[in-house]
């Protein structure tokens, strides 16, 4: 697979470590930030193939950041990650409406991420 530029937005340090470690190993460029505000900033500076964003975050939730990102970069592929297991959660629903490419519950198989990367 070609090298992909991945942006991970998650307040969990473990998640950031995971992405950096694994996808770095696989040869991709991984940037990991801890909240939506930073993500918007970074997106202003660089371009990414896929953005993986956690939904439940302090300061700015995933959907809120999504809104802004979609405004500025309507074509940006954003995959929302959620640690709640309930598909009825409001925020998860919102993400779809706001234009997220996909909604992925945690924990997920790494293979799914690979699939997404391949498709992007």
């Amino acid at each position, binding site marked *: 697979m070609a090298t992909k530029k991945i942006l991970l937005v998650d307040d*969990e340090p*473990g*998640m950031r*470590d*995971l992405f950096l*470690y*694994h996808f770095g*190993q696989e040869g991709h460029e991984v940037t990991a930030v801890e909240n939506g505000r930073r993500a918007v900033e970074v997106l202003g500076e660089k371009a990414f193939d896929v953005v993986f964003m956690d939904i*439940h975050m302090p300061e700015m939730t995933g959907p809120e950041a999504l809104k802004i990102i979609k405004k500025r970069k309507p074509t940006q592929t954003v995959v929302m990650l959620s*640690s*709640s*297991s*309930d*598909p*009825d959660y409001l925020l*998860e629903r919102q993400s*779809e409406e706001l234009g997220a490419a996909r*909604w*992925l*519950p*945690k*924990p*997920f*198989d*790494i*293979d*799914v991420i690979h699939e997404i990367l391949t498709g992007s």
Partner: protein
Amino acid sequence: MAESLAASSAYPVVIEATETLDNLVKRMSNQDEVAYIAILSADGRVLATTSSHEGGGDLSKEADQKAIMMGDQPSTFPVTSKTGKKFYEAVVPIFLKAGYDDINERIGTVRVGLSLSDLQQKLKGILWIGFLITGVIMAGGILAVFVFVYVVTSPLKRMASIAARIAEGDFSQRIKVTSQDEIGLLGASFNRMAEKIEEAIGWLRNLNEELEQRVRERTAELAEKNTELQKAMTYLQETQAQLLQSEKMAAVGKLAGGIAHEINNPLCVILGFAQSLVKQLSDTDPQALPLRSMEREAKRCKYLVQNFLAFSRSSKGEKIKTEVNLVVEEALELIRHQTAVKKIELRQEMASGLPPILADKNQLQQVLINLATNAMDAMPTGGDLTFATMRGSHGDGRDWVEIQVRDTGCGIPKEVHSKIFEPFWTTKEVGKGTGLGLSLCYEIAQRHGGSISVESETGKGTTFMVRLPAAGNGTRNNGDEKNPSGG
């Protein structure tokens, strides 16, 4: 008597016509009670006398003296003769009425002696007759009284006896009215009264019967209502318990939601790293095993969290596209621990390529867990519990998915197959099972447009079959592809 003799003998005395006087005397002495008669002159000589009298001579003197003593008035007095006989003498002076002047010269005395004993006898006789008559009258009177009383009382007694019989309960008795008098009237009134009583009793009996009938009906009604009430009560209590449970569950659900949320994050990291490392190692690497274990167990944690969450939340009944096999697998995971403890072997026979169904996952899992629990209860000493999924068709051209829960337990007798899905039907002891489980399963199956049935025989194990329609069968498509199968 003496006076009349005195009057009629007045003239003869004057002239002393003794024969006439004798005749007079004789005539008078013919009367029974006369014992003796003596007509005396003024100087006491006996002018005429009855032939038989006792002690006349003596008498004359006595009498005379007495007469003299008595004066000019007639007098009477008792006399006792020497022989002890008793007489009653009337002494009447004889007066000669001189024609024209008022001078009455006493010219003699008439003495009439009535035999007291005669008299007495006569009196006695009269008395006796009197007594007799009185006696007869009295007797007659008493008899009459008795008769009268009898006449009066016998009908009364009869009435009384009939009344007594009526009082005993025989209301058909009537008095024979034989007269038009007061007794008859009484009898007639009595009869009327008896009639009325009979009527009233009859009426009362009917009323009583009616009332008893009504009471019986009411009692039956009440008994029915009571049973209904009891059932309703039980149902209410169960519902209450369920509601309470639901509330608790809702609270727990919220908590569970928070916890699940918290756990999923670290889980993701663990799983991610385990998988990452596994990818980097070859299968022969000794570290592949431990890492694979970590991967597997992390996944298991994921399922557990999901199921715990699903179970602790109240189900809203919204149906989304669901993969049957996944639901079954998750249910399996939930009971795995229990089956191990109960020495029950857990098997799966899952067909592949099954179409998705539109279902509420929670409710579906409720059904599977319920069936599994029943199966486990049927195998107290261990056995096999199998979950199977397969494609099925009802012959109506539509696609169906069938889930089977099979056990090798004691089985369900054929007679009760139709009853087990009824609410409150249970073979378990009080407190151990509400009997609502299977009826709920039935309802849930219905709600999903499917059905639930059973195949079983006593001693030959049990298979429950849950058939659900495939999602593509013209039902609305929620378009929700985010069923939690990612991962």
